[in-house]
């Protein structure tokens, strides 16, 4: 039973519509729901799903298509009503109270003292809008991905010329003047200034600093490509220079996937020139020798602790775990005891890309090789990111999982679906998870997975085995989801929750070693 409606000239942002899709599909009796603009791609999609009509075929990119497939008439009715309400929620907030400009130019007229522009529009339009923003003297933060490399280089050169920040593309998080931009956590303010070419890495770092009692002056994201040779670290260097001159910033911290060698040299040079104590962590790269005022950290968490120490906090001490060795041993023994039968492999399902990579580095060597869709070594790359092989760590933010749906930090169903697959294989010996909270993320990621975790543990137990679930929560007490609340929900579902991602990975490693 189908219901298909086309609304002419009703443009909505695709991500906004995806969120609506997600809600509507949950309605009992609805098999398929597509609420989308009439682009060529979407129309093809509807043809493929058997949900096309003449009206759909005639729709243009400015027309909204609502296509519903359900088992009952009342379900279709409820779904249609839900879509309309969700769409109106957006327009209602603008109606009668607030005027919404349709262009950057008129937004600037409305707010002449605006100083930053945020972009989460399709990547191919970033060049045009970003240039306009820079020309008007606005700092930019670009959440959008799929921005052509040439565009990124041109825009960053223009930004540098004008002395402006151009964060991104694909920059998911930043904290400017204590305000969270896009995906970010509510952290204490303080003297540590951060420049990061990694989204979830930056979140883990700022939260670890917060947990250790430190505070952030500014946290600037550059987008992952900034440190590649083609871009040359333009924004990383620009941001570091700005932080070097910022009196509120007393410690500089850099976190990034391994940059091009030329960029590494320039970064170190800039840090040294700043005269401020600096901490650097290149995720997944060999730890370098400290040089002058620049210290290299072995992990994100260590980088946080070193930075806190440099900013006047407790002295840095390398430690594998926050809890003492005996407590760790007790947990390892308890969690390893029941694993048996066909249960052989570690399975890590990650929402944060950098967190997945970090965990992979920890477990890879010890377990004699771990497969992953983000493995730097081709030999260990998963052929199909959604099909695990032996020990596996999956970054669920991979494009394979996010076509037509939001990132797993927002859409928790992606991970729940993958968990079902892992369970079905019967090979899973241990489940390793990350939870990222804060602004932008799901309003209750732990709660949205708790019943699935508990059910998974029960089904393994029923089959005569035991499933340890090891997790960490990237977040703070001040986040809307509240760190301690998320932790408690997970513990009640049977998870062992560690205080950082790397500690969770280390514990998982120890348990797997114990099982042998």
């Amino acid at each position, binding site marked *: 039973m189908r219901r298909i409606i086309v609304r002419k000239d009703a*443009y909505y*942002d695709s991500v*906004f519509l995806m969120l609506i899709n997600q809600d509507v599909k949950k309605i009992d009796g609805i098999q398929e729901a597509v609420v989308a*603009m009439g682009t060529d791609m979407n129309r093809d999609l509807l043809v493929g799903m058997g949900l096309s009509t003449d009206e759909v075929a005639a729709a*243009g*990119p*400015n027309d909204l298509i609502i296509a519903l497939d359900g088992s009952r008439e009342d379900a279709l009715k409820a779904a249609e009503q839900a879509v309309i309400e969700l769409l109106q929620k*957006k327009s209602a907030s*603008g*109606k*009668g*109270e*607030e*005027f*919404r*400009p*349709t*262009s*950057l130019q*008129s*937004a600037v*007229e*409305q*707010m002449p003292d*605006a*100083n*930053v*522009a*945020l*972009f*989460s*529009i*399709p990547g191919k*339009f970033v060049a*045009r*809008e970003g240039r306009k923003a820079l020309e008007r*003297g*606005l*700092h930019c933060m670009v*959440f*959008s991905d799929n921005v052509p490399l040439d565009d990124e280089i041109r825009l960053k050169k223009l930004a*540098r*010329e004008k*002395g*402006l*920040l151009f964060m991104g593309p694909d920059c998911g998080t930043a904290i400017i*003047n204590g*305000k*969270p*931009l*896009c995906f970010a956590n*509510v952290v204490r303010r303080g003297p540590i200034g951060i420049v990061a070419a990694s989204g979830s890495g930056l979140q883990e770092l700022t939260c670890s600093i917060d947990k250790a009692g430190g505070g952030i*002056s*500014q946290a600037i994201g550059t987008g992952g490509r900034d440190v590649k040779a083609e871009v040359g670290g333009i924004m990383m260097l*620009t*941001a570091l220079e*700005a932080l070097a001159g*910022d009196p509120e910033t007393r410690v500089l911290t850099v976190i990034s996937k391994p940059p091009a060698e030329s960029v590494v040299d320039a970064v170190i040079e800039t840090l040294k020139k700043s005269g401020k104590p600096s901490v650097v962590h290149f995720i997944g790269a060999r730890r370098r020798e400290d040089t002058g005022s620049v210290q290299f950290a072995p992990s994100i968490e260590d980088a946080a602790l070193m930075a806190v120490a440099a900013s006047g906090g407790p002295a840095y001490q390398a430690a594998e775990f926050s809890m003492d060795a005996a407590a760790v041993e007790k947990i390892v023994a308890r969690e390893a005891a029941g694993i048996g039968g066909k249960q052989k492999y570690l399975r890590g399902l990650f929402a944060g890309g950098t967190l997945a990579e970090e965990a992979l580095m920890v477990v890879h060597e010890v377990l004699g090789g771990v497969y992953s869709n983000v493995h730097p070594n081709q030999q260990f790359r998963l052929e199909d990111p959604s099909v695990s092989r032996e020990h596996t760590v999956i970054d669920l933010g991979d494009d394979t999982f996010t076509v037509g749906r939001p990132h797993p930090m927002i859409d928790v169903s992606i991970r729940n679906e993958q968990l079902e697959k892992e369970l079905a294989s019967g090979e899973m010996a241990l489940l390793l998870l990350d939870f990222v909270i804060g*602004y*932008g993320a799901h309003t209750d990621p732990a709660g949205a997975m708790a019943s699935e975790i508990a059910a998974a543990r029960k089904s393994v137990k029923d089959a005569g085995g035991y499933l340890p679930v090891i997790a960490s929560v990237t977040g703070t007490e001040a986040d809307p989801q509240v760190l301690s609340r998320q932790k408690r929900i997970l513990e009640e579902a049977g998870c062992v929750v560690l205080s950082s991602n790397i500690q969770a990975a280390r514990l998982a490693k120890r348990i797997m070693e114990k099982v042998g």
Partner: protein
Amino acid sequence: MAGDNIRTLFTSELKAINLGLESFSETLRREGTEAVQVDWKPPAGGDEKIAALIDRVENNPKLKRDAANDEAVSRVMRSKPTLIDIGIAADVVPGMHKKLVLHSGPPVTWEKMAGPVRGAVIGGLIYEGLAKDAAEAEKLAASGEIEFDPCHHHDSVGPMAGIMTASMPVWIFRNETFGNYAYCTLNEGLGKVLRYGANSQEVIDRLKWMDTVLAPILKEALAAHGPIDMKNLIAQVLQMGDEGHNRNRAGTSLFIRELAPYLVMLDRKKEDLAEVFRFMHTNDHFFLNLTMPACKATVDAARGIEGSSMITTMARNGTEFGIRISGLGDQWFTGPASKIDGLYLPGYSEKDAARDVGDSVITETAGIGGFAMAGAPAIVKFVGGSPQDALNVTRRMYEITLRENDTYQIPALDFRGTPTGIDLFKVVETGVLPAINTGIAHKDPGVGMVGAGLVKPPVKCFHDAFAAYAEKYGVAP
């Protein structure tokens, strides 16, 4: 030094503009940061062909579009439309002759004319004595003996069907700055009137009375008064709740006040003078036929400026909506006339409505009408109901216009000038269409007005015009 701007950011209050996901601006607001959410759309609404045309235009370093548009819109500002006289069309309107019938909108043939326009043509031919009755008039109209041409081709404008024939009296306007002229018939009132396609004896009789009594009396009074600066008058009515298109109550009142002392001094029969007063008083739209030629005289001064993408004409003939562009000569770009999204008079509904018709959209072209909606709270029902909706209609128009008017102001927007000079480029880029207020005619000739509302012009004519603009002024694809 380069870092200065960034360090300024660090010490300033964060103020954000957000293009895209709304939750990002909600986050900022929750954390106490001001954020403007942009209702962003892809350029040209995601139309790749148009986006490519935009690139062609933007990538031409030789095209001085901004300067050309600046010249065009500054001509609009500098124009001084002045009511100078009343004359007979055949004597004053360029090219007018006995067998020429002028109509509103872009060119249209008798075969393709909408019902109300045909009705008005028939009435016009009877009025001119070229036909005895409707049947004869229809035959004559179809014979090819009668020439049809848009008012706009003859320095004229006409509301609704916009029919002007040789014997009709017309207002004469001169643009004192640039010396160009504009003409328009006198408004006949509401109900069964020629401009809505009525052509009964009652209609013809009223037209004859206008010839013999109304026009001569007003002409004499005007001569005694001297030329009237219409720009000044329109500026006043915008501050009295009119927007100059769908509401003309203040304007009609002011006009009566302006002429009253001269009318009463005329050596005319009291009964006739009283009838003239009453005629104007009972027709709130009497002033519309004065704002229209004032706007026509104003915008015509900006025609033909090389490189300018300013829209100098918008007009509808009941079949098609057409526009002309300053930098593209006299070429029309058309699309099908739309149905009007409006409110209906009791007893009528959408199914009675004719398609969009009339030259009155010249008011929007000149920066009033729908563009000054924020100044007309009495008619906000047409745009959603609340005064805020009316404000938003006007504010939206700043997105597609070149300048704020230096004379026409909106009290409710802190006396901000009305959005003036529609830029075709901006229309195409933002996908924001001009907001046009309009009356709705009955689809059958002779019934009259059945409602009023807001009309959405067809996107096609803007896209076609832009394609032609890119062809002439853009770099090669």
